[in-house]
């Protein structure tokens, strides 16, 4: 969905709450099962670690005083807030159902990610055309389940369009082989 999920905190009172439940139910059908307490605890511990690390480093930058705040004061305060909130999350968040289980299909984003990293590494070396073409093929054929025919047509067309758009249309110096 989009950046804003359907949850409103209040104002209109009970109908709103009821609507929220209805909307949540509506969305539930499309969502994989919730991850359970382990997911919530791990998330809380990770944010806690971020907070502790931030606080330690910030302390090292020098806190100064309120009259003359040092470079570390602000990040230290923020880190302290993160630590406090993480503790709250660890206490109250165990039963939340807003996480999603990793499943067999979580491999798909991993493959997608690999193509991103591959393109990033190859871009400065052999230009964008071949890696981009490979990315398209992987995404269309293996991640998207398109037929070989449409894979070939769409990926060649896409790379050609990008070539024209970036190098001629916008005049942006993208590393290219040809």
């Amino acid at each position, binding site marked *: 969905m989009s950046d804003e999920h*359907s949850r409103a905190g209040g*104002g209109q009172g009970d109908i709103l709450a009821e609507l929220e439940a209805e909307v949540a139910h509506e969305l539930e059908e499309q969502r994989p099962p919730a991850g359970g307490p382990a997911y919530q605890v791990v998330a809380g511990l990770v944010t806690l670690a971020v907070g502790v690390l*931030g606080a330690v480093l910030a302390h090292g930058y020098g806190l100064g005083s309120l009259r003359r705040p040092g470079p570390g004061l602000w990040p230290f305060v923020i880190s302290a*807030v*993160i630590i406090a909130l993480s503790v709250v999350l660890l206490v109250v968040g165990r039963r939340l159902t*807003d996480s999603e289980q990793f499943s067999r299909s979580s491999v798909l*984003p991993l493959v*997608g990610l690999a193509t991103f990293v591959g393109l990033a590494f190859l871009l400065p070396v052999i230009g964008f055309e071949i890696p981009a073409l490979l990315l398209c093929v992987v995404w269309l054929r293996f991640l998207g389940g398109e037929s070989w025919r449409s894979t070939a047509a769409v990926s060649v067309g896409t790379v050609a369009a990008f070539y024209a758009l970036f190098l001629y249309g916008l005049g942006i110096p993208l590393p290219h082989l040809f």
Partner: protein
Amino acid sequence: MDAFLDGFAVVSQPENLLYCLIGVLIGMLIGVLPGLGPAATMAILLPVVVTVDPVAAVIMLAGIYYGAQYGGTITSVLLRLPGEASSVVTVFDGYALAKQGKAGTALGVAAIGSFVGATFSIILLSLSAPLVAGWALDFGPAEYAALALLGVLLIATIGSGHPVKALIAASIGLLLATVGRDSFSNAQRFSFESMQLADGLDFVVVAMGLFGVGEILYNLEERHGKAHVPAAVNNIWPSRKELRTAAPAIGRGSVIGFFLGVLPGGGAVMSSLAAYATEKRISKTPERFGRGAIEGVAAPETANNAAATSSFIPLLTLGIPANASMAMLFAALLVLGVTPGPQLLEERPDLFWGVVNSMYIGNVLLLILSLPLVRIFVRILRVRPAILAPITALITILGVYTINNSTFDIFVMIAFGILGYLMKKVGFEPGPMVLAFVLGALLENNVRRALLIFDGDPTGFLTRPISGTILALFLVAALFPIVQAVRHRRRAPVPDETTQREDVLR
């Protein structure tokens, strides 16, 4: 007034009209396609957009945002699949109408309502923005700090997701904003002696990662084998009787949307829920809702467009983005060398009025597009998402590279993409993090400036009238969810059908 009219001169330049059209078309398109939201789309297109003239770029990005509100309706009605979160409630009655063979009517009413709501908001925006901007010089560091603090809090609490999680995400966003050189002491923070990090994380790169790549990866996992069979679309012009039923709902939706949209963190999603709830509450026949009540489509669709438009007010007048999409617009303006804030109206009237007035025109375009062209957009629904996915992926990677011609940026973006994906999996929304990241430097620098001016005395924040008022609001906003939660808990033990019924009717 002159500047206002000049604004129309700015918009009516063919180039700007073209970008307005492109913007609303892209907006409608991504609204129709479930998957990418407007904030992600704006993030992905940022590097391409910054190569054009600032006014045209902002006109186009704004068009994407409000255009998406129109587009989201179409899938809600035809597929029972909201293209945008702000169209979720439209599903209830919109899809019911579609099943009764009245899909066209629902879309027609939604388009008209959207147009009325948006136009209402633009008119109020045109009138109120100069008033707010008039206080510009009274806003010192203390006021900016208070305002940014309020913004971060409101976004985290009345936005989306669990409030504690949203606050954690926002705090981490604030922490990320401190990476790099501290502009007060020239000391390096969290940059670990990396040249690339010495000047901080590039906002566009972070946003493209969290929104763009995160969402692309997330969609890879979610999208499999869903066949799109849209309902048939018949006559799209609603009858006079239907219009008469919808008209009051459109009126109320406009007002609700406008006011909720101005609130930071409010925006389109909350206003559509609130408008729907209001209609259901005051209706003499609430049982029709969910079974094809035309008001149930008119109210939320009007409200979400009104809110989408009015959320420009805090951005353009105070420089505080009200939601994730506005944060992207904020970033775009910064990249283009324009700092949104109280000075914007005075310093760049061409940009200010050009963008505001482009919304009048953009909405006319959308009304024209969405009525007769609905059938074409329905056909777009048949394009398989698998084909669009690699194209968006490529735009993202190549786009981020072109910002600084840097492969380092691609890796940073990928890293934040992984973070964004994992956040979604464990129930954290990336929105508050991105917003807090945008506001982070503004908040920190102004707090520190204010402390220098107050000679280290933090009570200075409370004794100045404007910052004191804002901080009082902050306190209300912080306490409200807690009070609300306590009230809920007290009520929860009696999930009795009859009491709920009463609540609804009350």
